[in-house]
């Protein structure tokens, strides 16, 4: 059975976590944009990305428990689960890279890693948007 849950069907904790993730993504975007000007922002950004990793795991857990409660088998929405997996992998990687470099990521030898962290943030934000927009995309199709 194909079922595309909407935000208001996902329950309050999911919406709260989703809102928190949105706020943290905003903070991460600003911090990542300012990394080159203020290298000391590397450590706060590490914390924000680490928190986002666990927030995504929480969102995934809430989604799975909701399916258990409703006794549903929506195996046709693998795209949704893959988006969660990709976001967790990318955010964990960005946290690891920033954890290694910290405030020295603004240096010349950290250029590739800096771009990689920005790509991780952008791609995981798109994954999060894809998770929520999925019902609307399915409707259009």
């Amino acid at each position, binding site marked *: 059975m194909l079922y595309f849950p909407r935000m208001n069907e996902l329950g309050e904790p999911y919406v709260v976590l989703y809102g928190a993730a949105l706020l943290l993504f905003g903070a991460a975007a600003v911090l990542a944009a300012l990394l080159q000007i203020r290298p*000391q922002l590397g450590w706060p950004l590490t914390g924000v990305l680490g928190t986002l990793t666990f927030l995504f795991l929480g969102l995934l857990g809430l989604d*799975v428990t909701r*399916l*258990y409660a409703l006794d*549903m*088998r*929506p*195996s*046709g929405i*693998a*795209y949704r*689960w*893959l988006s969660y*997996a*990709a976001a967790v*992998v*990318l955010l*964990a*990687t960005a946290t*690891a*890279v920033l954890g*290694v*470099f*910290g*405030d*020295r990521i603004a240096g010349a*030898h950290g250029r*590739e*890693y800096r*771009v*990689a962290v920005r*790509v*991780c943030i952008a*791609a995981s934000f*798109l994954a999060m948007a894809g998770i929520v927009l999925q019902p609307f995309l399915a409707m259009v199709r």
Partner: protein
Amino acid sequence: MFSFHARVHESVAAAALLAAGVTLHVLWIGNLLAVRIPAVRETFTLMPELGSASGLFCLAVAAYALVFFPAGVWFKGRDCSHARDPIFWFFIASVAAFALLTIPFVHGFGVAMEVA
């Protein structure tokens, strides 16, 4: 400025990027196989509620660990500067491949052939 880390362990960052790239490739290839081959889908279905994605999650964790730890050990104490660029572009290509090849329309695409 005071820092706890006197030295940058680039080996860990390079291994993390390489592991993320490999994991994304494993995920899209695994998803493609699960969609196309019912036996693979059955094998990956560890939790019926999640479908084949449950097996894909485990596969992703295994792939990340299997690449991250050996690569970290391999890069440790070595000059990673020559590997920086290839790993970075491999990672970018993996993100692009994952984004494109997990779109349901793309991985569900097929060509029907009829023999006259």
